[in-house]
């Protein structure tokens, strides 16, 4: 059966199944299990009200539990076993990993990524948001800066391969170097700095995201505070740094952490640009090197990523709970 046909059938089965489940289960609940009839009338309605939320929630809880909660546990357990999965070796995968140069490089690079990319994207996003704020063609500019968000990391990598190409007739960087009389270089092979050239790709993608959110936050600042500052004689820079930025600090933190989380997931860029060569490995790409070869090691790397993400997760949950109160 062709995948296309299979896809169409899946859509019908999936959507139909969902509708049938929700409609059918509600119907059964109301008509069969707790019918609002006879002397039980009131009690049955109450009982049905107690059960119904779980009918609504069940598919989501089931899918979330199976596809996200179980793997956290499953991955951790698997990471305690050896490559073939039959011998328990405790933290062996972790100690082995930390003793290897390759993993330490990946960890170090990943920390660099997690510091530089959110900082760069948030800063440029804030800059773009502020600059386009009062501009007549601001929306067009924003939409163009936002555009890379729609492009896949693989597509973006290819786009930047052209920019970085080691040939002054293809790569614009080397073309510029050529016109000022410098020889061609391959930016992806310059030790240490090549990491930054890879980070630029993700900054290029994420700046639009930061800009959109921060731009909305800037618009939400009460006009009075800015007017008051103008009357008090503040110059545009003071208004920006002393009045606006402190008021949107919360949003800046949100943008920053969201991008940090993303950085810890993205393996595509390194994978497509350098394949982890020239000391550009990061944890997600390092993990993919072991995927299908050594599941013990791969899950151990994944769990290290999880541990790095954990503080943000806890912080997010606390923020959400505070907001709900």
């Amino acid at each position, binding site marked *: 059966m062709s995948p296309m046909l299979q896809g169409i059938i899946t859509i019908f089965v999936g959507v139909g199944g969902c509708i049938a489940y929700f409609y059918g289960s509600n119907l059964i609940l109301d008509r069969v299990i707790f019918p609002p009839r006879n002397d039980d009338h009131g009690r049955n309605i109450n009982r049905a009200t107690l059960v119904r939320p779980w009918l609504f929630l069940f598919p989501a809880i089931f899918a979330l539990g199976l596809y996200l909660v179980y793997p956290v546990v499953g991955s951790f357990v698997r990471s305690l076993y050896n490559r073939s999965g039959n011998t328990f070796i405790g933290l062996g995968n972790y100690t082995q990993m930390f003793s290897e140069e390759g993993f330490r490089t990946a960890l170090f690079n990943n920390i660099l990524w997690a510091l530089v990319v959110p900082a760069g994207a948030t800063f440029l996003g804030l800059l773009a948001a502020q600059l386009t704020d009062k501009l007549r063609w601001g929306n067009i500019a924003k939409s163009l800066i936002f555009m890379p968000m729609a*492009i896949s990391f693989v597509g973006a990598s290819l786009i930047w391969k052209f920019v970085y190409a080691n040939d002054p007739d293809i790569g614009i960087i080397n073309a510029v170097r050529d016109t000022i009389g410098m020889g061609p270089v391959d930016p992806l092979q310059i030790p240490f700095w090549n990491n930054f050239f890879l980070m630029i790709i993700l900054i290029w993608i994420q700046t639009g995201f930061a800009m959109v959110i921060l731009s909305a936050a800037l618009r939400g600042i009460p006009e009075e505070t800015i007017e008051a500052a103008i009357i008090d004689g503040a110059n545009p820079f003071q208004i920006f740094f002393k009045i606006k930025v402190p008021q949107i600090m919360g949003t800046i933190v949100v943008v920053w952490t969201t991008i940090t989380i993303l950085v810890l997931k993205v393996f595509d860029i390194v994978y497509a640009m350098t394949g982890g060569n020239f000391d550009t490995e990061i944890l997600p790409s390092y993990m993919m090197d072991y995927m299908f070869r050594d599941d013990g090691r791969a899950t151990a790397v994944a769990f290290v990523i999880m541990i790095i993400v954990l503080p943000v997760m806890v912080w997010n949950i606390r923020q959400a709970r505070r907001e709900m109160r």
Partner: protein
Amino acid sequence: MDNMAGQKTSLSIVTNLSVILLVILWLIPTVGLLVSSFRSNEQISASGWWASMFPVEEAIRISPEPEGVTRDGEMFVLSGNLFGEGSGTVSGFGIASTDPGAAEPGQVYARFNVDVTEPDGEVDNARVEVAYDAEAQATIPTEDEDGNPVVAGTAMLDRSLQVARNGDFTYVSDSEITRAPSVYITTMQPPQFSLQNYQTIMASDNMDRAFINTLTVTIPATIIPILIAAFAAYALAWMDFAGRGFLIAMVVGLLVVPLQLALVPLLQLHNRVGIGQSFLGIWLAHTGFGLPLAVYLLRNYMVGLPRDIIESAKVDGATDFQVFTKIVLPLSFPALASFAIFQFLWTWNDLLIAKVFLPSNSESWVMTVKIADDLLGSRGGDWGILAAAAFISIAVPLVVFFAMQKYLVRGLLAGSVK
């Protein structure tokens, strides 16, 4: 106050200029890709895409048919026009691919066999190549390429080529011309843009298959989570039950779980229950991974719907199921659209999940895998083909992006934890 006004204009000029600069910086990479995808490989390697509007000098190899060879003493002579029936302008020519523009039109380019004296005193054979004006005589250099002195008077013509600007040529060789000789010319080509790269990649590289595979992965993986999430979001927003707060916190927490964790256990699970690496597997995986964002986005939106409408409907005797399908779902359309766009972009652009949950044969490659695992290797230097492939893979998301930007922005604003 005049002073203030003056400051304002200069500030606005600076702002305008900075934004223009920023936008240009942001667009350059993509424009480069787009322009390159319409150029032939020869043009791409001859000049940068930024110069694609200007003619470029291209080197071409031509092998004129050895017809009508005449004899001139010891030598064999072939003459004709290099462009054959067509026409063109020669800007340089040569007889070796290493230096296709060694001589200018109107000159003669000749190769001589000479004797040279090597550093150890031995006399050996060598070749020297010289370009000279057709009216003049060839001046044999005193040294060969390696710097060994040429023994005077030993030069014997091996072959020579004379090409005029219009392509008329005379090829002279000391041996009989039985096979077509290789002649190199450089010629200024006008800028050319064509869909050739797109045709090549679609026809010979199975990109059409990958495109359909991507579509096949994306559509069910976008539609199915929406329904599941919508019901759950309604329960979390408008129904009262114990553990609601905990579940919401759970969803927020799951938003940031790195997908890497899910890969190994889920693949094993899929293998155990017989799904294995298949389209069904990837639909399920995308559904599971997309749910936290879907539930979170939709709940945030539904919670903001006016309480009066929902409560008056309940007072009128509507069940939760009716309230959901008749009131909440239609009102939540903007949030549903936001999530649908997110999930569409995410599944379309995904590489990680496709690599793990789909079979790794070329029949099931989606476009991202096709580009990253196949084309970057097998078509590594084919910049035109790579650009066309990349553009095919980003075209649909770009259209969706520009058409539905409003919903995307709305979703982003609702989706970031405030």
